[in-house]
């Protein structure tokens, strides 16, 4: 840790913020006490809706109109920000405080070249001439690890990758040598490997410039890679703060303990070893290839050659009965494409053998296949029709496939389904929007299990959920797996989670299946190059891996 000049760059004391709503004031932040020293990264960790982003905007003094500051103070190097006029704040923003946002795709203007956007910051705040600003920008880009900075300056945002864009935004944030930088989930929209590089870059730049920083994230394990201290925020209140090691080793408050224990840790296996002698392959996919896009109407007449986008390039894998097969890969690696092909949502070429029966296209998928192969989607908001009650949603598979216990009346069958996923029977009369995200995902699970399937495809089903909810959903899935012996094709980008629950792991990259390996051997050195890079990029929760973090002393 940096020891010289322990002066406070940012000092928030007893700060509270309300939003005025139709139903009265909503308390977003309550009595926030935070301080960041020069050269320190403070991690701010909280689940969605905890007020972490509102706090960031409070510091930037850029609040929505219905915001009302109830009291407290926000000091930047001893100056009260709450007393500054909007005109004065314009000078502070960008030059003394800067911010890096979550999605690099939307925080750059698509109609301006990257160089124009970066040198604009220097023109506005450092009073350089355009030529000086341009030259300075090139050296800034070199600093953030862009290989050909002069060429990159002339490109438009859509011509750069997500990682490159985030690097440019970081360059802009550091451009005016600010006293304080806010990182608002800077790697959430990026792939694991890119995210790791960005975090390394952040910590490097931060150590070099000695700037104070607030690192906001929902991912405790991720924050621990960069932050010296961590503050945990829950429902607008700072629950606990302390050094990173202290938070992980001896969390004091229940909420922190829950957060620490909810981050998946590959060393704690949650499923038993599968009996190797058990029945063989349940579903076998052979050379599944999926193309996207159809040749445009009439375009053949004028001689255009249509080149389709490849979603999957001859993927072959087999799911054994009762097995959890994990599929991991970055976004765009073809994981979901494969899932959709297996349930007949994507036209595919190749062959699926299910239970000895060959299926060569969507038309071959009969009722029996559909009953036995169910899918659960990522966003429970999107997978439950907002205009149907939970009871009606759950009644559909019962009507289509028949009830498991034929004697049971429908209402009771639905209540039993709800009980299976630990939801009260009264939920049958509710609409999806009256349920929380985790509860909605439980309904989606109940719907998939209504037909007693033999294979359930879980397409990123935990990634839209908060960590604590995610842990309980995973636990429920494992309990159901024990009860019914269902096989899962569990798709996720969270490698740590897979190492906890999967029997075997399939690694995908850009539409190809790289390899399939036993979960226990995923970290071995014999794995493919890409797998090893993936393993290297995924942060482990520090309580078990304190030595593997070169960024902290």
């Amino acid at each position: 840790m940096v020891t010289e000049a322990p002066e406070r760059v940012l000092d928030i004391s007893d700060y509270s913020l309300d939003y005025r709503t139709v139903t009265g004031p909503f308390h977003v932040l309550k009595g926030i006490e935070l301080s960041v020293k020069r050269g320190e990264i403070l991690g701010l960790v909280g689940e969605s809706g905890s007020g972490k982003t509102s706090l960031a905007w409070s510091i930037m003094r850029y609040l929505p109109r219905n915001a009302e500051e109830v009291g407290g103070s926000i000091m930047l190097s001893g100056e009260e920000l709450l007393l500054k006029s909007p005109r004065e704040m314009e000078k502070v923003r960008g030059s003394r405080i800067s911010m890096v946002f979550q999605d690099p795709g939307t925080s750059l203007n698509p109609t301006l070249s990257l160089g124009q956007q970066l040198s604009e910051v220097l023109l506005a705040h450092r009073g350089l001439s355009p030529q000086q600003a341009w030259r300075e920008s090139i050296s800034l880009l070199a600093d953030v690890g862009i290989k050909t900075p002069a060429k990159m300056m002339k490109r438009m945002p859509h011509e750069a990758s997500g990682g490159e864009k985030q690097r440019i935004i970081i360059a802009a944030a550091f451009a005016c040598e600010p006293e304080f930088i806010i990182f608002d989930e800077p790697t959430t929209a990026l792939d694991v490997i890119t995210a790791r590089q960005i975090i390394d870059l952040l910590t490097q730049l931060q150590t070099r410039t000695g700037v104070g920083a607030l690192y906001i994230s929902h991912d405790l394990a991720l924050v621990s890679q960069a932050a010296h201290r961590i503050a945990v925020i829950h429902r607008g209140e700072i629950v606990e703060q302390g050094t990173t090691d202290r938070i992980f080793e001896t969390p004091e408050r229940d909420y922190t303990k829950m957060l620490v224990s909810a981050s998946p840790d590959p060393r704690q296996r949650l499923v038993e070893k599968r009996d190797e002698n058990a029945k063989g392959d349940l579903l076998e996919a052979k050379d599944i290839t999926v193309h996207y896009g159809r040749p445009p109407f009439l375009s053949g007449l004028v001689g255009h050659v249509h080149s389709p986008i490849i979603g999957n390039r001859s993927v072959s894998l087999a799911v054994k009965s009762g097995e959890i097969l994990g599929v991991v890969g970055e976004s765009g690696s073809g994981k979901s494409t494969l899932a959709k092909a297996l349930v007949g949502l994507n036209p595919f070429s190749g062959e699926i053998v299910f239970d000895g029966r060959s299926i060569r296209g969507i038309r071959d998928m009969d009722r029996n296949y559909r009953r036995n192969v169910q899918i659960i989607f990522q966003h429970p908001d999107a997978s439950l029709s907002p205009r149907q009650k939970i009871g009606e949603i759950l009644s559909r598979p019962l009507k289509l496939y028949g009830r498991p216990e034929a004697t049971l009346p429908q209402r009771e069958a639905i209540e039993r389904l709800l009980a299976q996923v630990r939801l009260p029977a009264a939920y049958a009369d509710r609409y999806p929007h009256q349920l929380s995200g985790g509860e909605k995902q439980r309904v989606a699970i109940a719907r998939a299990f209504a037909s007693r399937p033999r294979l359930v495809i879980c397409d990123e089903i935990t990634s839209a959920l908060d960590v604590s909810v995610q842990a309980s959903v995973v636990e429920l899935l494992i309990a159901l797996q024990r009860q019914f012996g269902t096989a899962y094709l569990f798709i996720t980008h969270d490698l740590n989670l897979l190492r906890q629950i999967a029997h075997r792991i399939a690694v995908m990259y850009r539409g190809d299946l790289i390899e399939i390996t036993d979960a226990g051997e995923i970290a071995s050195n014999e794995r493919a190059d890409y797998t090893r890079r993936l393993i290297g990029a995924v942060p482990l929760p520090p309580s078990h891996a304190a030595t593997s973090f070169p960024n902290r002393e």
Partner: protein
Amino acid sequence: MIDFSKRLIRSPQGAAGTIIVLLAIVIAAVGPDIAPYDPSAMSPLLRYRGPSLAHLLGTDEYGRDILSRLLFGARSTVTMAVLSTFLGTLVGSLIGTISAFLGGRADEAIMRTLDAVMSIPSLLFALLIVNLLGSNSVNALLAVAITFTPAMARITRSVALAVRKQDYVNAAIARGERGLYVVTREMLPNVIAPVIVETTIRVSFAIMLFATLSFLGLGAQPPAQEWGLMVSQARQYMHLSAWMLIWPSAAIAIVAIGFNLLGDGLRDVLNPRL
């Protein structure tokens, strides 16, 4: 629902629109009962009178009370407009949703056909249909409904295309639901909000379209008390009494504006993102 109406009333357009439309519905319902005179009772001595205490809005070329005729006419005018719009919406939104659900070549074929139909101006198209079917109220209703169908289909399709990509539709297809179920139970209920807004606004177009048809002598036939027909007949006598022309025109304008405002209000309420 209570929260919904509260928000609707809170916006100025919503409040004004609701009041006017409610008033129009009340008049359509009880108009004949509160009318001071028989709408077809002639009095040759009281022709072309301006507003007076005995005849609040004056009298027409046969000495009939204009207020009574307007009150009686509200029923056919407003009901016809609402019915035809509703019919057009129903057919249009079904076509639009099915087209979005089918996608690909079928979608292309349906939408290009509708584009072709839409390229004919709506009044001309309605005139064509009425001429083919014969001029009476029911045919005018059908004509307006058919005229509205392509535009409603287009609007519904644009919303339905987004709904088509939602996972609840995917989930329904993956579990092997029939196409009809997916269209009617999964997709239609979720495209209905913007369609309702468009429908409300279109009622005002329908009122004016009906008035135009009647004005051209292709809708309701005399001695019916339809507002557009009243304007058409008053035209010949406007230099004798302008009131005959002003009152029914004003009635049409007010109701049309009312539905338009209600549509604006609904749009704000149903779409919180705006």
